[in-house]
C-alpha cells in the first residue's frame, strides 16, 4: 500500500513538473477562487466579531409615565427583577435626566425653562445579561416590557447592529454565490487540464491497461496531480491573502479615519487556513477525478 502511494506521489509530482504550463493555468484559476473566498471570510469574520462586541453593549431604556406612585414603581422593579434577561437596572428620575441633558448639551441648558417644564420622563436603564444579548432576544424582551403597566416607551439602539447584521448576511449570500461560481470554474479548469494531460498520455494509459494495471493504479497519479495543483493553489492564495491583509491594514493605519482602522484588525484564524488549503486540494481532487474516469473504461 505504502509502495503504491509512493508511486502515485512520484508520478503525480513528475507529471506536474513536466507539464508546468497547463498545470500553472489550473493553479491560477484555483488561486483566484480561493482568494475571493478568503477575502469574504476575512470580512465576514471581522464583521461578525464587531457585531458580537456591539451586541454585548446593547442597553435598553424604558421610559415611564409621569407621576407613577411609589407602590407602582416598586411593583415595576419587582417585575423587572424577575425577568431573566435583565441584570442590573438603574432608575433615572426626571431631575437626573434633566441634569444629564444639561451636562451633555450646555448650550441648551435654558431650554426646559423656556418650555416651562421638565420634558424628560423618568426611566430605567436596563443592562441585559450576556447570554440574552442577541437581536431577537432584545426584541422579544422589548415586546414584553411594552406590555407592563406604567411604561410609556421602550427604547433600544439596535440600528447599527441590525444594519451590520444585514451587511454580514448580504456578504455571506454574495460570497457564497461568487465563490460557488468561481469554484465551479476552478473544478472545470482542473478537469480540462487533467483531461488534456490524460489525452496526451492516452497511449501510455492503454498500455498500462493491457499489462494489467487496475483503474485505481492508473488514476492514482492523475488524482495526486490534481490534488497537488489544489494544494499549491491553497498555499499561494493564503499567502496572497495575508499580503493583501498586511498592505490594507498598513494603509488604513495611515488613514485618519478611525472607523476604517477599526474594521480590519484580525487575519483569519488557523482553522480557516487549513480550510482554504484543504478546499483547494479538494477542488483539485474533484476536477481530476471527473476527467480521468472516461479513460479507464475497459
Amino acid at each position, binding site marked *: 500500500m505504502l509502495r*503504491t502511494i509512493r508511486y502515485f506521489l512520484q508520478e503525480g509530482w513528475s507529471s506536474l513538473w513536466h507539464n508546468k504550463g497547463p498545470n500553472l493555468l489550473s493553479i491560477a484559476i484555483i488561486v483566484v477562487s480561493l482568494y475571493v473566498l478568503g477575502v469574504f471570510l476575512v470580512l465576514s469574520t471581522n464583521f461578525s466579531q464587531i457585531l458580537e462586541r456591539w451586541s454585548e453593549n446593547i442597553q435598553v431604556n424604558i421610559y415611564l409615565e409621569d407621576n407613577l406612585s411609589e407602590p407602582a414603581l416598586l411593583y415595576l422593579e419587582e417585575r423587572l427583577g424577575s425577568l431573566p434577561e435583565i441584570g442590573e437596572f438603574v432608575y433615572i428620575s426626571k431631575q437626573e435626566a434633566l441634569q444629564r441633558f444639561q451636562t451633555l448639551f450646555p448650550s441648551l441648558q435654558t431650554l426646559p425653562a423656556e418650555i416651562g417644564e421638565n420634558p424628560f420622563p423618568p426611566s430605567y436603564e436596563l443592562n441585559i445579561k450576556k447570554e440574552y444579548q442577541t437581536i431577537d432576544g432584545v426584541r422579544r424582551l422589548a415586546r414584553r416590557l411594552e406590555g407592563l403597566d406604567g411604561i410609556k416607551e421602550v427604547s433600544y439602539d439596535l440600528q447599527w447592529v441590525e444594519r451590520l447584521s444585514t451587511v454580514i448576511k448580504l456578504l455571506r449570500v454574495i460570497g457564497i454565490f461568487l465563490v460557488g461560481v468561481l469554484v465551479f470554474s476552478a473544478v472545470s479548469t482542473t478537469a480540462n487540464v487533467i483531461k488534456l494531460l490524460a489525452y496526451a498520455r492516452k497511449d501510455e494509459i492503454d498500455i498500462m491497461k*493491457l499489462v*494489467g*494495471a*487496475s483503474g485505481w493504479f492508473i488514476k492514482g497519479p492523475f488524482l495526486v496531480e490534481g490534488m497537488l495543483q489544489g494544494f499549491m493553489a491553497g498555499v499561494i492564495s493564503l499567502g496572497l491573502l495575508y499580503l493583501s491583509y498586511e498592505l490594507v491594514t498598513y494603509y488604513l493605519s495611515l488613514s485618519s479615519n478611525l472607523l476604517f482602522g477599526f474594521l480590519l484588525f484580525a487575519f483569519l484564524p488557523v482553522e480557516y487556513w487549513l480550510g482554504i488549503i484543504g478546499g483547494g486540494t479538494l477542488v483539485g481532487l474533484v476536477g481530476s477525478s471527473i476527467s480521468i474516469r472516461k479513460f479507464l*473504461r*475497459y
Partner: protein
Amino acid sequence: MFKVSKSYDPVSSALIDISLHIRKGEFVFITGPSGAGKTTLLKLIYREELPTRGQTLVNRRNIAKLPSRKIPYLRRSMGIVFQDFKLLNNKTIFDNVSFVLKILGVPTAITKKKVYNMLRMVDIHHKMKSFPPQLSGGEQQRVAIARALINDPVLLLADEPTGNLDPELSMEIMRLFEEANQKGTTVIVATHNPSLLRSIKNKRIIGLDRGRVVKYY
C-alpha cells in the same frame, strides 16, 4: 472458444463460428493471411473485445461475463507481446519491465532482482537504463517479451511478434517463446509468416481464413 463470432458491423464479420480448444502448456500458432481474424481472436482472449455470439472460456471462466473491474486481474495472468511492442517511451527499459511487478505490489528488492535476471535472459540487461526509442526493433521486442514473461504468466499471447524483425532475430524471439513454453507457459502466437512454424517442434496450428477455421491440427 465455443461457436464464437465477432462482427464490427452488420455487413462483415471478423470471426465466424469459431470453436477451438487450447490446452494448458500447448504451443499454438494461429496462422492466416492479413484480415483472417488472428488479432481479433487474440483480443477476445485478453478481453479487449467482446464476442458478438458464443463463449470464450479462459481457465474455465467465461470472460465475456467478467465485470470490468476484474479485467486487470485476468490480464495479470497473461503476458502479451504486440507487433508494435507497446512500450512506455518515457520510461527506461528497466522501468518498463518492472512496471508489471509494481502493479502487483512486489517489494522493490525482489523486483530489482527479477527484472535484472529477466533482462539478462533476453540479453538486453546492458541497456536497462536506456529508453525504448534508443533501441532497435529487435531489442524493443526483447524488452516486450521480458515484460510479458516477468510475472510468470500462465498464458503468453503474441500478435505478429516478429513482424518488424529480420529472420535471424525472428528465430531468436521464437527461441525465447519455446523456452517459456518448456517452463509450462501456454503460448499462442498469431502470425502470417509460415517460416516461423518450422522453428517450433511440438506445436499445434490453427489456420484462419476470412474469419473461419480452415486448419486445425
